[in-house]
C-alpha cells in the first residue's frame, strides 16, 4: 500500500500574526505534489510544520491513518519525512558517503564502519539510477546537480517516504534542471511522495501530478495539474485576474535613434559583441548560465569593462571603466543580486532611492531637491513610510526601490539583469510595465532573463549568447525552441 500523509486544518501564528490558517494538504506515495503561492503565502512555514521545525497551533498530521505530533525535526525524520533545503547542507571537504551518514555513522568495533557506509551509499545511488556518483569522492569535486543527488540520498538513507523540496532548481544551471527532473520522476516511480515547492510555473506543469495553492496563509485549491492552466494558477495565487503579464511591444516605426551601440566589444568573458539598442526599445539577451549574458551586462556598466572594441552612447564613442563612469554617462544597471549588490538593506527606502543621485552625480546636481514622494509613487512602492528599512519590504517592493534609485537620475540606457528574479507574479507584472514605460520615455533597455517566456514576452528583439559570443538575433515573439537552439550552439538554419 502506498503511503498517504494528511495535514488537516493546520494553523500557525508568530507573535500573534497568523501565517497559516487551517491549511489542508494531502500527499500520496508516488506523486509529485506542487505547493504554490506568492511570497508570504505560507509555503515555507507549512514545509517546516511538516518537517517538525514548527509545531502547529491547531490541526493534525496523519501518516497512513496514524496521528503524529512532532516534537522536533528528529521526530519527523523518524516518521519518514525529509526536507531538501534551498541551500545545501553538505560539508564540501568530506566524501559523499561521509556526508550521507553525517552524525549517524555506522559503528563496528568502536570504529566507523567506512566500508558499510560506502556500500550503503552506493546501493542507494544505484537504486536512484545515479551510479555515476562516486561515494568516496569529496563533495567539493561534484557539480552542483550531483550535490543535490547527495542531498537526496542523504534524505533517503533515513528511509524517507516523503521528500519535500524547497525551490530545488534555484541553485541549478539550466542544463542541470533536466537532470533533476529525471531524478524526481524516478523517485516518484519508486513510490516516494514528493512535495515540490517552486516559483517556476513551467517546472510545476512539467513535473507535478497535483497542485495545492496557498494564498495569505489559507488553502485556496487543490487540483490535478492536468485540469489547470497557467492562467488559472496565477488567478488562484493572486486572487484576481492579472490580465496580461507583458505590456504591448514598441511600434517599430516609433523607435528613436541608437542610444547604446557595441562594436566588436570584448573582454575576458565576452568576445566581439556587436549590438545596438534604440531609444524606446527593449532588447532581450538570452543564453544559458555561463554564456556571458551577465558578463555582457557587467561590462557595459563598467564592473568588468570591455578591453577591446568600442562602445557608443548616443552615437559618440566612449569608454566606461567603472560603475561610476557608467552612471555619470547615463547608464543604469539593475543587478541580478538584489540583496548582495542592489540595496543597502538596513538603510531606509529614502536613502536607497537617493543612493545613486547622492553617490554619483556631481554635488550640485546630486543635492538638488528631488520629489521623492512622486518618485516612489511612480514605481508604486508599498512601504510603511519612506523611513522604513528596505530589508523589511517584500522582494517585489525591494526591486521597485532599486528601479526608483535609477529613475532618480534619468538614465539614457538601462541594463537590467534578471529584473524579476525572486519576486511574485504581481510584482513581476509591475516591473514589466515599468520597464516598458521607461522605454516609451526614450530609454534604451537591455534586459537579461533566464525565464524564456518573460524574455520573449518583453523583448522587441532577442539576442542570444553562447560561449561568450552573440550566437544570433531573433525577432519579437520568437519561439522558445528557436532561442534554445541558438543558446545551445545550434544555428537557426538547423532547427528551421
Amino acid at each position, binding site marked *: 500500500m502506498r503511503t498517504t500523509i494528511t495535514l488537516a486544518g493546520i494553523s500557525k501564528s508568530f507573535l500573534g*500574526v497568523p501565517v497559516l490558517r487551517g491549511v489542508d494538504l494531502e500527499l500520496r506515495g508516488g506523486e509529485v505534489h506542487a505547493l504554490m503561492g506568492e511570497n508570504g503565502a505560507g*509555503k515555507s512555514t507549512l*514545509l517546516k510544520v511538516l518537517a517538525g521545525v514548527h509545531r502547529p497551533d491547531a490541526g493534525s498530521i496523519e501518516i497512513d491513518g496514524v496521528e503524529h505530533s512532532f516534537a522536533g525535526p528528529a521526530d519527523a525524520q523518524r516518521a519518514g519525512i525529509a526536507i531538501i533545503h534551498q541551500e545545501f547542507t553538505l560539508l564540501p571537504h568530506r566524501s559523499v558517503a561521509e556526508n550521507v551518514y*553525517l552524525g549517524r555513522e555506522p559503528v563496528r568495533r568502536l570504529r566507523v564502519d567506512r566500508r558499510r557506509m560506502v556500500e550503503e551509499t552506493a546501493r542507494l545511488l544505484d537504486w536512484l539510477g545515479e551510479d555515476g556518483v562516486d561515494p568516496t569522492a569529496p563533495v567539493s569535486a561534484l557539480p552542483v546537480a550531483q550535490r543535490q543527488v547527495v542531498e537526496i540520498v542523504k534524505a533517503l538513507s533515513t528511509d524517507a517516504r516523503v521528500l519535500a523540496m524547497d525551490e530545488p532548481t534555484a541553485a541549478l544551471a539550466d542544463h542541470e534542471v533536466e537532470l533533476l527532473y529525471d531524478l524526481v520522476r524516478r523517485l516518484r516511480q519508486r513510490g516516494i511522495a514528493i512535495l515540490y515547492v517552486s516559483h517556476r510555473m513551467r517546472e510545476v506543469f512539467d513535473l507535478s501530478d497535483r497542485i495545492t495553492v496557498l494564498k495569505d496563509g489559507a488553502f485556496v485549491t487543490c487540483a490535478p495539474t492536468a485540469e489547470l492552466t497557467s492562467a488559472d494558477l496565477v488567478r488562484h495565487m493572486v486572487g484576481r485576474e492579472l490580465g496580461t503579464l507583458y505590456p504591448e511591444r514598441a511600434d517599430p516605426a516609433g523607435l528613436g535613434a541608437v542610444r547604446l551601440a557595441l562594436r566588436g566589444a570584448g573582454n575576458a568573458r565576452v568576445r566581439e559583441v556587436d549590438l545596438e539598442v534604440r531609444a524606446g526599445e527593449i532588447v532581450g539577451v538570452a543564453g544559458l548560465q555561463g554564456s556571458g549574458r551577465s558578463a555582457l551586462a557587467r561590462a557595459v556598466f563598467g564592473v568588468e569593462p570591455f578591453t577591446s572594441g568600442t562602445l557608443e552612447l548616443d552615437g559618440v564613442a566612449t569608454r566606461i571603466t567603472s560603475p561610476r563612469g557608467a*552612471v555619470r554617462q547615463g547608464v543604469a544597471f539593475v*543587478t541580478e543580486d538584489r540583496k548582495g549588490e542592489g*540595496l543597502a538593506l538596513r538603510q531606509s527606502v529614502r536613502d536607497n532611492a*537617493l543612493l545613486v543621485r547622492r553617490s554619483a552625480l556631481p554635488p550640485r546636481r546630486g543635492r538638488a531637491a528631488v520629489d521623492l514622494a512622486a518618485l516612489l509613487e511612480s514605481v508604486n512602492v508599498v512601504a510603511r513610510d519612506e523611513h522604513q528599512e528596505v530589508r523589511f519590504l517584500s522582494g517585489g517592493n525591494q526591486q521597485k526601490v532599486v528601479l526608483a534609485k535609477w529613475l532618480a537620475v534619468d538614465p539614457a540606457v538601462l541594463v537590467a539583469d534578471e529584473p524579476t528574479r525572486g519576486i511574485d507574479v504581481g510584482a513581476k507584472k509591475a516591473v514589466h510595465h515599468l520597464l516598458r514605460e521607461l522605454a516609451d520615455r526614450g530609454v534604451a533597455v537591455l534586459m537579461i532573463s533566464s525565464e524564456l517566456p518573460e524574455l520573449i514576452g518583453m523583448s522587441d528583439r532577442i539576442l542570444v549568447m553562447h560561449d561568450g559570443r552573440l550566437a544570433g538575433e531573433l525577432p519579437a515573439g520568437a519561439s522558445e525552441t528557436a532561442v534554445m537552439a541558438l543558446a545551445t550552439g545550434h544555428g537557426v538554419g538547423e532547427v528551421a
Partner: protein
Amino acid sequence: MSFRPRLAEGTAPVLVVLVVLLVGLAIAGPAYSSPEGYLALLKRAAPLMILAIGQYFVIVSGGFDLSVGALVTAGVVIAARLIDGEDSATAWVILLVLAFGLLVGLVNGLVTTVLLVPSFIVTLGMLLVLDGAVFLWTGGAPRGALSPGFREFGRGAVDVPLLGEVPWSVLILLAILAAAVLFMRGGTGRALVAVGDNEQAVRLSGGRVNRLRLLAFVLSGLLAAVAAILLGGFAGVSAQVGAGLEFRAITAVVLGGVLLGGGRGSVVAATAGALSLEALFTLLNLLGVAGALESAVQGVIIIGAVAYASLGVGLRHRFTRTTTKQPATASG
C-alpha cells in the same frame, strides 16, 4: 525639505541611560543640583565626546580606529615640546597638531583602502608606532610645556550672553556636533552609512567607496587632534594622557547603539554614549567605587551593549526567518 525630528533606530536606549545617570548624579552629588555642575561634567566629557564623533564615522562605515588614544598622546607631547611655554608659538603649533591628526588619519585610511589591510590591524599598528615614537622621542618623560594660550581651550571659559560663563571646550564640542549632524543628514553622510551596510551596493550605484572610507579615517584623526588640544589644556602634559581613550571611545559609540561592522547608528547617540560613560564614571566616583573598577565597568558595558544589539537582531531575524522563505533552522 521637511523637518521632522525622528529618533534613529537604536538611539532611544542610550538617551534613557543618560537621563537615568544624570538624575542619579543629581541625587548623589550636591554639586549637580545646579547647571554649573552639569556644565563642568560636559567640559570634562567634551574630549571623549569629540573622539566618539570621530570614532562614529569610522565604525558606521564598517571600520575601527584604535589609533586615536595614541594620537591624542602624540599630539599633546608634540605640542608641549614645540611650544615650550612660548605663547607666540601657540597658533602654528595648533595648526601643526591638527595637520598631524589629519595625516595620521590619511595614512590609516590609505592603508585600509588601497592596501586592503583590515582597519583593525592598520590602526592597531598605528597605535604601536605612535606609542613607540613618543617614547623614543621623550624617553618616557615629555619635555617642554604648553603655553597659557594653548591651555585656554581646555581650561578656560568665555562669557556668552544669556548663558554666562561657558567653557571653550563645550562650545567647540557643540560646534563639531552640529557640523556632524548636518553632515550625516546630507548625501555624503548617508552614503557613508550605506558603505558600512553594503559597500558593493554603493559601488554599483556609482559611489566612491574608498574615498568615503578614507574620509571617515581623516575625520577621526582630525577630531582626535582636536581632543588632544582640549585634553592637553585640561589635564596637562603627560605621556599617558591618551592611554586607553580609543577603547573608551569605542565603548561610547557602541553604548550609543551604533552597530559594530557599520550600517546603522546616529552620531547624536554615539555622542550621548560618550557623555553617559563620563557621567557613569563620575557617579561611581561619587558613590566611592574604586577608580580601578573603571575599566572593568567599561568592559561589561561594551560586551553588554553589543550583546543587547545582537540579541535584538537575533530575535527579529528568527522571526523573519520563519515568516519569509529562508533556509530552515534545523534538520539533518
